[in-house]
Structure formats: structure tokens, C-alpha cells
């Protein structure tokens, strides 16, 4: 669906943000894009949407190069940016102006989403708070019926009930034909929703790109581990609640994914994590 091949990009001539970066996003998946500040998560989303010119490599969506920004691509892709600048008109008017651009737009879906978020469509966009604007825009994105929704920090500014409503909306609107790419620091808001995790780092670019199923199969996330277990851990996080850690899964039992621990392991023990995943891959592929 979305293919990034050998991407090279920089804002300044001698400071490469991405070098020979490749990534594949399949349809029907919710993909989480994680990484420290300044690593280029938002930039990658803008590149995917064709909002920045690439220096080298290709980014294609359903076979179309994204920087060409063809209408056939744009009406099948929607970006929810971190900061919204919406016109000072009513929500109804916004919908009547923008929905004709999206052939698969569903007013019913929009109504459902707005009801879920408890937003009255009669209001003017300028009267809404930042969080409410985001809720409206996410609802509109879901109603467009596009195959790819790209979201940059979607839960920033959204209140606590809004976050669980957001998860509910995501679950309701997922289909085999639709993919969602989410860049966020608020991992707790989406951790149960993800099918694929991509972690970026400043030094290595793409640090990790794995399905959640495979990560849970190959790694064990312990909310509270012993000192003995900590010796073999990829990453240990000490807190008041105890010592949580991520270990190689030698038991075969699947544990619940903890993105914070995974993120720590990827940043602090990247080589071992990669070797572990590669080793398991080679074991899987080994002929009997």
C-alpha cells in the first residue's frame, strides 16, 4: 500500500535526517510511529503525504509517487496534523465544503463519530477548544472513507474521556482496506490498538519495524521482575511500583505489549534486540 524505498532527506545540506530509509506499510494495519524528539517523525509523515520534496529514493502510495500530489492519491489519504488551522465557519459548512472532495465520504459515519465524541455539529469551528477541534477533525478524517489516515500526535490536547473515545472510534473504523499511521509520544493512548510498531532513532534511522504479534511472541514484558531476571533483560525500568523489564521470550507464553519498555529496549539495547529478532526470524525460516 505505502512503500518507502531508500529515502534520503535533509533540511540542511550536511545534516541527514533519513539516509537510505525503507519502510513498507500494508493495508488493514494500525501502525505506531515512535521515536525521541527531533528524530523526524513528523517529517516522515509529511514526506509520506507528499508535503516535502525528497532528495533521493521514492515514496509511493498505491503505485503513485506522493510528491506529485495527484488528486486520486489525495482523495484516498488524509492527514491529521498536530496543530490545526481551521477556517472560522460552522462544522456543517466545513463538511459541506470539504466532503465533495472525498468520493467515499459518509455523513452517517461522521454523525456517529461526533456523537461518540459528544460534539454538537451546530457549533462554529472558531468556538471550539483545541481538543474539540481535534476531535472534530479526527471524526471528519474517519468519515472520508480514505484508505490511509496519517495522524501526528492525535491525542495531544484531547481530554481523558476523549482518549478512550478515540480508541473506540479507531476500533470501530478499522477495516481490511484501511491503514492508520499514528505518530505519538502518548503511547498509553494507543498501545492496545497497534498492529505494527516502527521506532526511529537519530543515529540509525529505522531502529525497529515489527508486527505487535511477533514482538509479543519473541519478547516477554514483565510488569515486575526479579533481580535474577533482570540480568538477562534487554531493558529494565525502575519505578516506585517496582522493577519492570523486557526479556527474550524463552517460555513461549505471550505477555501484554508494553510500548514504553519496548521503546527503552530499542533505544538502549538496539543491537541485541535486532539480533534477537533476526535470530528468531532465521529460526522460523529454517527448513525442517
Amino acid at each position, binding site marked *: 500500500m505505502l512503500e518507502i524505498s531508500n529515502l534520503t532527506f535533509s533540511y540542511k545540506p550536511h545534516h541527514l535526517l533519513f539516509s537510505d530509509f525503507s519502510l513498507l506499510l500494508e493495508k488493514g494495519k494500525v501502525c505506531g510511529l515512535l521515536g525521541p524528539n527531533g528524530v523526524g517523525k513528523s517529517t516522515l509523515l509529511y514526506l509520506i503525504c507528499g508535503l516535502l*520534496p525528497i532528495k533521493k529514493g521514492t515514496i509511493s502510495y498505491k503505485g503513485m509517487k506522493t510528491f506529485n500530489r495527484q*488528486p486520486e492519491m489525495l482523495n484516498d489519504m488524509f492527514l491529521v496534523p498536530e*496543530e490545526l*488551522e481551521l*477556517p472560522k465557519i460552522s462544522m456543517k459548512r466545513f463538511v459541506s465544503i470539504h466532503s465533495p472532495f472525498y468520493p467515499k465520504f459518509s455523513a452517517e459515519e461522521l454523525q456517529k463519530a461526533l456523537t461518540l465524541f459528544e460534539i454538537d455539529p451546530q457549533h462554529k469551528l472558531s468556538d471550539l477548544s483545541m481538543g474539540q477541534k481535534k476531535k472534530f477533525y479526527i471524526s471528519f478524517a474517519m468519515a472520508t472513507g480514505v484508505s490511509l489516515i496519517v495522524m501526528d500526535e492525535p491525542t495531544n490536547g484531547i481530554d481523558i474521556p476523549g482518549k478512550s473515545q478515540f480508541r473506540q472510534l479507531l476500533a470501530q473504523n478499522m477495516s481490511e482496506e484501511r491503514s492508520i499511521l499514528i505518530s505519538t509520544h502518548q503511547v498509553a493512548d494507543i498501545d492496545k490498538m497497534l498492529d505494527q510498531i516502527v521506532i526511529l532513532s537519530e543515529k540509525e534511522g529505522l531502529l525497529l519495524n515489527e508486527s505487535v504479534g511477533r514482538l509479543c511472541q519473541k519478547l516477554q514484558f514483565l510488569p515486575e521482575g526479579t533481580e535474577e531476571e533482570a540480568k538477562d533483560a534487554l531493558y529494565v525500568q525502575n519505578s516506585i511500583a517496582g522493577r519492570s523489564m523486557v526479556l527474550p521470550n524463552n517460555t513461549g507464553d505471550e505477555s501484554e505489549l508494553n510500548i514504553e519498555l519496548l521503546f527503552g529496549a530499542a533505544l538502549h539495547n538496539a543491537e541485541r534486540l535486532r539480533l534477537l529478532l533476526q535470530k528468531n526470524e532465521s529460526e522460523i525460516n529454517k527448513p525442517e
Partner: protein
Amino acid sequence: MEKHFSFFKFSRFLLLLRKDFMENYRRYIWQFLFLTLFVLVANWMRLRFIYTDVGQDWNSADFYPNYFQSATTDAVINNAALTLAIVTMLGIFDLSSSFNTKGRRIQLLMCPATSFEKFISNLTLLFGKILVLFPLALLFEELIRVVLLSLFFPAKYIFFANLCGPVVVSDPDLLSLGNPIGIAILSFFILGGIIWPNRPVVYTVLFAPAIAVVTFFVGYVFVILCFGDIGSFAQAAETRSNFFFDLFHQHENWIQAHWISLWTCFLYLVSLTNVTLAYFRFKEMDINNRFK
């Protein structure tokens, strides 16, 4: 995915026009009111003094055609020039207002239409505003002027000016050059508006002398390189030894007979070049404003 003819689709173009109008129509009404008020105040001051000065003699047979009428006509011409200038400037600001911040650029670039459709819809709105707002504002100003002056000077005969026929330039040849000159100037502002969306008018106005200085400098260096000094260039021009000078002098009569047409062609060519450059700059636009 099904492939379509993507360069221009009329239905999408209409959707873009509709989108712009419905998002901004309140702003356009305010612009219209501001414009009318501004020009009215400027001309009110001027006409009020003239009418007060005229005193009781305003209706005398020789005074009326020589002073009163010409003063009113002058004021209407000033009105027209000022209104046109303000409408054009407002249009240029509006042209770049859809992409002068990062958020707006994202909205514009992610809108499902081709760059050509977006560019043409922006230009259509600009010309539409000039063609609709300008005569409307002028009519409205004239109406208010007549009503107000009739109220303040009830004893005098206040008349509507002939808005369609004020003779701005007495020479009809020069008058015919008005359109291409206006369009050429506008095209520079369109290009400036695309390159510097944050301060289009200021930067374009500042850039024009810079271009003139650079052109003069390049010409000077070229002359020095080719002829050694300015004197030799002048001599070469005098003796007509140069191919271009020969060509010019051979066709001097024809050029003199057709200078209006030549200038018109040249100005339209300049306009076309500017608008083409503006389109390609617009097409290559990304969310980073490289020229802010």
C-alpha cells in the same frame, strides 16, 4: 487504481472556487466595506473643501464647467484609481493568504485537486475580485457621495458622475496600453505573492528596484566586455555597425507605426512569463516556506 485525466477537471475547479468563497465570504464583505469607507473618507475631505470654497457662485455659467465639474470628475478618477489599487492589493493578499502559514499550506496541499486547478482557482478569484469588487465599490462610493453631499449642501445641484466615461488619458493610443501595463504589473505581484506569501506587496515592491539595479549592472558589464567602454558602445550605436542596430534602423518606420502593438505584445509576454513562473513555483510548493 483507476487512472484519470488529472491535469484539470472542471468539477474540482468549481469545488475549489466554492470552498474559497464559502470559507471567506465574510472577509470579502468586510473588505468591500473597508474599501468603500476608505475611499469615501479620502474623497469626502477633498470634495467638501471644494464645495465649501465654491460658495454662492457655484451655479454661474462659466464657473460650473471650468471648476465644479472638473473637480468632481477629478475626484471620481481619483476614486477609481485608489479603489483599483486597493482592490488589487487586497486581491494579492488574498491570493497568498491560503498558504502563508504552515497550517494553511497543509490544508491547501492536502486538498484533493491538482496544483494547476488550485492555481487557476486562485487566479480566477483574484481577477474575479478585481472585476466585481472594483465596479461595485465604485458605484457604492458614488452613491454615498451623492447622498451625503446632497444632505450637506442641499442648495446645490449634486449630480452622478459618468463612471463609464471619465477620460483618464487623452491619447487613445496610450489608453489602449493601460490594460497590458496593468496586467504586467499585476503579474509581478502574482509572482511576488507566490514567492513571498507572508509580505507579498512589500517584497515585490522592494524587489523591483533590485531587479532594475541588477539589470543595469549586468548591461553595464556586458557593454564594457563587448566594447571596452561606454564611449565605444555609443560610437558603435552611432555608426550602426551592430547587427541589431542595423535591423532596428532597417525597420524603423514599421516599428514606429506599430509601437503600440509591439509594446502590448511585449507586456503580455512579460505577464505570461511571470504567471508561468508563478505556477511552477506554486506547483513545487512544500510546507516549508523557503523564502519567508
